């Protein structure tokens, strides 16, 4: 049995910090996750706002469906994207399976419902609060969207962070569509899964510590930015 205290004390020694492949893995994790969350934010925030203010038949059902998709199991998302991108699937001719792009698509699908659902709730609450003010200023529901998005910007950071956390920690989907190919689609989480299966538990734990540290740094940065922003915005 591996002694857990020994594992922790020697974590740093075990990490392949001099190995360039180690940094490639971290960089790829960041690249895939930030691209997926960035794209999901670009689409999800306006869609969430539109869903908050829009009135159309089937809206409640759509909201329930999107809320439910927040709990979409990553392996299911991965399997769906896998079948889409496989050479025998409808998008097979692009040869995207087992590539970073495939991992971005899968994570985009996982993160989008989270960002839409959370931003919808935020914007809807804000709309209830400022409805009279905005309508008296002559702004229609649609025209109010940019104003509300702007006013809620600090709360919306949280919905982006929720998406980021989901994508950064996720292994089920990217393992299926990325294939964990060394030097190409191996990320922090798939490397942890691999090292665990090789029985190299100290290294797996070390990689896990790095992953958590990175998540902490990203969240601290976002927190600082929104705090500073809130102060200067008055």
């Amino acid at each position, binding site marked *: 049995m*591996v002694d857990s205290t020994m594992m922790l004390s020697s974590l740093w020694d075990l990490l392949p910090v001099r190995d360039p492949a180690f940094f490639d893995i971290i960089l790829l994790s960041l690249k895939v996750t*930030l691209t997926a*969350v*960035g*794209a999901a*934010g670009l689409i999800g925030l306006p869609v969430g706002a539109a869903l908050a203010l829009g009135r159309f038949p089937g809206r409640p059902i759509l909201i329930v469906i999107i809320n439910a998709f927040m709990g979409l199991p990553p392996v299911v998302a991965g399997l769906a994207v896998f079948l889409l991108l496989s050479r025998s699937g409808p998008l097979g001719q692009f040869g995207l399976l087992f590539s970073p792009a495939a991992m971005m698509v899968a994570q985009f699908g996982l993160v989008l419902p989270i960002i839409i659902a959370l931003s919808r709730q935020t914007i809807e609450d804000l709309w209830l609060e400022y409805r009279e003010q905005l309508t008296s200023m002559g702004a229609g529901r649609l025209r109010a969207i940019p104003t509300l998005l702007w006013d809620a910007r600090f709360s919306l950071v949280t919905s982006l962070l929720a998406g980021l956390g989901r994508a950064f920690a996720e292994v089920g989907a990217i393992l299926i569509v990325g294939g964990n190919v060394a030097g190409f689609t191996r990320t922090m989480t798939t490397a942890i899964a691999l090292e665990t299966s090789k*029985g190299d*538990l100290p290294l797996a734990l070390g990689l896990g510590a790095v992953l958590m540290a990175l998540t902490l740094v990203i969240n601290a940065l976002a927190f600082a930015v929104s705090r500073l922003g809130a102060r200067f915005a008055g």
Partner: protein
Amino acid sequence: MLRRLITTAVFAAAVLGPVTGPVQAEDRFITVASTTSTQDSGLFGYILPIFEAKTGIKVKVVAQGTGQALDTGRRGDADVVFVHARAAELKFLGEGFSTKRSPVMYNDFVVVGPKSDPAGIAGSKDVAAALKTIAEKKIPFVSRGDKSGTHMAELALWKVAGLDLASIRGEWYREIGQGMGATLNTAGAMLGYALSDRATWIAFKNKGDLQIAVEGDKRLFNQYGVMLVNPAKFPSVKAADGQAFIDWLVSAEGQKVISEYKIEGQQLFFPNANDPNG
């Protein structure tokens, strides 16, 4: 703030490199669907850089169980399959998903179990008798349960032992549906027995209280074969580069490199490309 966020995201994506960048930069590559044993044992990490340096063809390995790797080939998602389950490989050939199978190398399976040896089989060279004892005493046995080559070999061994797994299996027989390493981790934790390929066992770093219980039985032989996915079925298959990889594996040079891979002084794979029974 929102705009700034978006700008930041776009900027980050731009700085970190465009999505398609690395794909284009590594234009010449093949995708090989192979098994967890060849990857987890470190064999690919040793031989692929040598092949890549010689030919300039980058090899992307997707490590799966043999069954899944063959299915990856059946969908056209790999150029080459490199696996170890002869019957399943011949079926793949028969279905027309490849036109030729080449034997490459072999290693052997071992039955590993707790050092306390609750079944009392340690040191045996008779795998059939050992499995019978495990089943009779209902000692935990951890099965891959994932249609991998090792799983198929395990199922065949129960038959060799004259046991009908479907009727005797109970709580003692634990299918976990995971890779070799995960199975060894589980066997260690449950104090149970498991069938492992020797290469993964030697390279495995969390042996804990496990040891080899049964080895040296001829029926534990583990042959690896390689096949090019049929380009007539999937025009996307990189036939020339895939064939170059196969030719190298079975060439004198490739065979020598395979035999040179060692962990702790132990040779893990034994090349036998010229063995007609391989």
